[in-house]
């Protein structure tokens, strides 16, 4: 204990030193000088004057000490002595202390870690200046549907809406090959208009960001790097501003590096100016994401009205096709945490709050048990004259010390949890979320620890001191009856109930996860590795060149030993297809909206997607042959519905088709040659959208995904795959390497994350409930020793005693389970949104939950029961007599 006191003393000494001490020193010197001067004026010699001044002043050290006492806090001393007493008393029961502290540490730690996530995602303002002014601007063709923006529309907004926007920028994600002497690597970036960094109000740490001229045609090739890219991809080179890295074969000057922070958590490593080429200035192609910074005092709604007014005005002068789209201006803060993420986070937070409640219940229980066993000590002290208030204060200090220790340990636990979960969090949280044990989280931890201390400490302290002194002293207090025991049983019952809620919640999510894993995705996942590839426009300026390259690469890859099949597509299997187009059928007024995917002949084969009618896409379908497409069953159904096209194979329709690099679409006639079984491209629960598959050779795209089926050892084949691609073009890096299982998990991740989290919390809760049950049962047995001794002396056998104790335990558990089931029913509505094809009242999950809790009750009861049964009755009776 002396070390603790010493530490506090040193800490206070540190605070005491410093300004106040120096000021006092100065005051004394000034005082003595003035006194000396007066003394000299009275006719004393300088020497005598100095002595006189000193004498009149009195004891300097004594006065300083008094001064310090006044400055510091009196109550500190009293508190220190109470703390010392508390620590000493805890030190006498190290086992008890360790159990309570670790129980609280688990509860507090889980909560603090979870709060840091809630805080980072939902509470903290975004890490940009005046974050509430940053908005995203969407077009909404239909209520609830949002769309990207075309370049001319964006330029209109920028020109005409500057009364509401301080800055407006458009962006498009890009991916380039960075080549240096070690070869080529892929770098994700964004092409942005010059206002981009004004929208986020971010200044460069080194150099500068873009000037207004830099997104005009003819500007020099310049890039801004993220801090992480500078440190990682460029080794923190201090001369970075003089370097000209080669991106897609073109040297770019680094004009600036951003400060570390939010942008480092995004996958964007660099930004380059977005220069609109004439062929991109088409109103029909919607491809830009628009962010804006509102002027002060402008609401999102007013900004939306302004843009709608611009639309209306332009529609009159320029006859933009009869669009009645509304504009959605949405604060960035609301966008980064989508509704799904928000719900998962709150459910997880609710789960940890339950864990904390259970931990508190445990602490109360243990403290009550402790207080009960100290009745005699307290009674003696009370008889010797200690006031009830004094006893309460002392017990309270003791529990406070315990809870604060628990809180500190909890912060350490939270730190570990956050560090362990960081990679997972970085993947699933928006880039603006900085999850950290910062001051806000620490104050939350402090508040929790204090709340726990009050909750868990006050009650036992009051109960203990209100008990009857005479009864305790006379030693007649025996057995498990009495209000005290009833209270503790009630607490354990509550713990069991809360734990059951958590456990069955976790089991429900787990079953839902299993269902998801077994979900028929429509593709064969095993031994398939995927990666992405971007062709630089400089080397592959025409779609023909790209088509030739793709064909050559597919052939080369299929020759790699260990590779069995190769497919190429513009979008990964099981991932959402971002391209949307329309099919125009003669005789039908509205185009049929479809998802649009370009694939090579190997795609369906590699993924085992069966052709159910007509044919798939073959090597014959190329630039020179008639345009063909394959549709999925969902589209076949849709065509039958809207166009009464029961047998689509052989029918010719017109399909809007995006260009290669240029932002221009054409609407050729295309023959439907086949129907395939739908592959899943959206999250479970959504219906398969209608999809069109067009031969990659007939409409190449510079960005493709490779889907490669390998033998058993995927990792072993990867170097050969890279080598093969390098053979054809040494400057093309492969990126985003992932197995098909990983791709699927990412599609399903919205549903799986809460399951993992809540599962972890449920495990903690079960552990805590087990500790609680064990604590109470073993304590009850301790108190019943005499009773058990008498029973055994009267002929009770060991099994009788065991049965008695276990019945007691199971009784508590049974009542707890009943309440827990009620709680589970109450939470049905919350759980329903998180479950996939599992009822919130799934009998399997609830049965397993109840059974496991009962088992834990039995285990927790068995150990104390066995101990009780092994007691020697003679010994017990003598000891207690």
């Amino acid at each position: 204990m002396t070390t603790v006191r010493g530490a506090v003393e040193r800490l206070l000494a540190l605070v005491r030193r410093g300004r106040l001490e120096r000021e006092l020193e100065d005051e004394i010197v000034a005082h003595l000088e003035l006194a000396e001067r007066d003394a000299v004026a009275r006719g004393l010699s300088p020497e005598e004057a100095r002595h006189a001044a000193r004498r009149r002043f009195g004891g300097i050290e004594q006065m300083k000490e008094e001064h310090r006492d006044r400055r510091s806090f009196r109550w500190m001393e009293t508190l220190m002595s109470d703390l010392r007493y508390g620590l000493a008393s805890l030190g006498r029961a190290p086992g008890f202390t360790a159990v309570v502290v670790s129980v609280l540490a688990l509860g507090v730690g889980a909560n603090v870690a979870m709060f840091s996530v809630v805080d980072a995602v939902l509470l903290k303002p975004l890490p940009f200046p005046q974050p509430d002014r940053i908005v995203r601007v969407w077009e909404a063709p239909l209520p609830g549907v949002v769309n990207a923006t075309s370049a001319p529309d964006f330029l209109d907004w920028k020109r005409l809406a500057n009364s509401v926007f301080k800055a407006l920028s458009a962006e498009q994600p890009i991916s380039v090959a960075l080549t240096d002497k070690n070869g080529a690597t892929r770098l994700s970036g964004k092409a942005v208009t010059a206002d981009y960094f004004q929208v986020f109000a971010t200044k460069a740490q080194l150099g500068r960001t873009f000037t207004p001229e830099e997104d005009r045609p003819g500007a020099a090739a310049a890039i801004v790097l993220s801090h992480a890219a500078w440190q990682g991809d460029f080794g923190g080179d201090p001369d970075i501003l003089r370097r000209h890295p080669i991106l897609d074969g073109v040297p770019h000057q680094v004009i600036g590096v951003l400060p570390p922070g939010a942008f480092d958590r995004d996958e964007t490593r660099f930004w380059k100016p977005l220069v609109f080429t004439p062929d991109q200035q088409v109103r029909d192609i919607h491809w830009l994401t628009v962010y804006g910074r509102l002027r002060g005092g402008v609401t999102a709604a007013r900004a939306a009205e302004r843009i709608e007014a611009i639309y209306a005005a332009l529609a009159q002068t320029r006859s933009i096709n009869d669009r009645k789209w509304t504009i959605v201006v949405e604060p960035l803060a609301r966008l980064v945490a989508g509704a799904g993420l928000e719900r998962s986070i709150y459910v997880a937070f609710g789960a940890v709050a339950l864990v904390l409640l259970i931990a508190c219940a445990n602490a109360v229980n243990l403290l009550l048990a402790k207080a009960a066993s100290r009745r005699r000590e307290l009674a003696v002290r009370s008889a010797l004259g200690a006031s009830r208030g004094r006893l309460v204060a002392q017990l309270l200090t003791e529990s406070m010390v315990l809870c604060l220790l628990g809180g500190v340990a909890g912060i350490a636990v939270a730190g570990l949890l956050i560090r362990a979960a960081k990679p997972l969090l970085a993947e699933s949280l928006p880039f603006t979320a900085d999850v950290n044990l910062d001051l806000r989280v620490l104050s939350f931890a402090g508040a929790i620890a204090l709340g726990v201390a009050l909750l868990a400490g006050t009650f036992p302290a009051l109960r203990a001191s209100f008990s009857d002194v005479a009864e305790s002293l006379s030693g007649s207090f025996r057995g498990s009856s009495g209000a005290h025991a009833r209270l503790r049983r009630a607490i354990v019952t509550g713990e069991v109930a809360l734990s059951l809620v958590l456990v069955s919640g976790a089991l429900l999510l787990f079953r839902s996860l299993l269902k998801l894993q077994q979900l028929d995705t429509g593709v064969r996942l095993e031994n398939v590795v995927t990666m992405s590839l971007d062709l630089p426009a400089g080397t592959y300026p025409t779609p023909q060149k790209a088509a030739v390259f793709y064909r050559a690469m597919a052939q080369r890859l299929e020759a790699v030993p260990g590779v069995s099949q190769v497919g190429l597509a513009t979008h990964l299997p099981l991932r959402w297809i971002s391209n949307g187009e329309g099919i125009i059928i003669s005789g039908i007024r509205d185009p049929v909206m479809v998802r649009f995917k370009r694939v090579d002949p190997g795609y369906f084969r590699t993924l085992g997607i069966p052709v159910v009618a007509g044919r798939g896409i073959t090597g014959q379908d190329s630039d020179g042959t008639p345009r063909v497409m394959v549709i999925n069953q969902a589209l076949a159904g849709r065509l039958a519905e809207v166009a009464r096209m029961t047998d689509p194979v052989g029918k010719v329709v017109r399909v809007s088709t995006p260009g290669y690099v240029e932002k221009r679409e054409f609407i050729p006639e295309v023959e439907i040659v086949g129907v395939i079984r739908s592959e899943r491209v959206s999250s479970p629960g959504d219906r398969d959208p209608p999809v069109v598959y067009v031969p990659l050779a007939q409409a190449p795209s510079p960005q493709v995904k490779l889907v490669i089926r390998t033998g058993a050892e995927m990792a072993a084949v990867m170097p050969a795959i890279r080598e093969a691609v390098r053979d054809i073009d040494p400057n093309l890096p492969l990126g985003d390497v992932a197995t098909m299982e990983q791709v699927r998990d990412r599609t399903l991740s919205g549903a799986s994350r809460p399951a993992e989290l809540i599962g972890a919390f449920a495990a903690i809760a079960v552990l805590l409930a087990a500790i609680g049950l064990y604590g109470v049962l073993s304590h009850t047995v301790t108190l019943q020793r005499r009773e058990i001794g008498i029973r055994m002396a009267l002929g009770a056998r060991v099994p009788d005693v065991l049965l008695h104790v276990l019945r007691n335990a199971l009784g508590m558990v049974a009542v707890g389970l009943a309440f827990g089931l009620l709680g589970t029913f109450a939470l049905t509505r919350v759980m329903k949104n998180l479950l996939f094809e599992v009822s919130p009242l799934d009998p399997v999950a609830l049965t397993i939950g109840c059974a496991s809790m009962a088992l834990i009750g039995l285990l927790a009861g068995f150990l104390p029961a066995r101990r009780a049964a092994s007691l020697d009755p003679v010994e017990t009776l003598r000891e207690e007599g």
Partner: protein
Amino acid sequence: MSKPQSEVPYGTLDLLILKTLEAMGPLHGYAIARRIEQVSGDSLQLSQGSVHPALIRLEQEGWIRTDWGISETNRKVKFYSLTRAGKKQVPVEVANWEKATALVARLLESL
């Protein structure tokens, strides 16, 4: 040191300092101590240093405040003056003192 000297009665130093500041306006620590000595006709034995802890206490109560000034010896020193609360406190303290002395006097007479 020819005159007989008495100690400052317990608890009165605060009152003396408040009264002094009320009468004299802002003063530094030494001046306060000297003033109290002078008014008492040097019959009060005051350890001059003891005014400093008392000043801290009064400042903590919010009755006096400090401003930096320059002493006659050209040194930066604290000048103390009454706050508004301090001005209100002076009559209260005086009344308390009078009540206490009246009580003690009555007790002494009747015992």
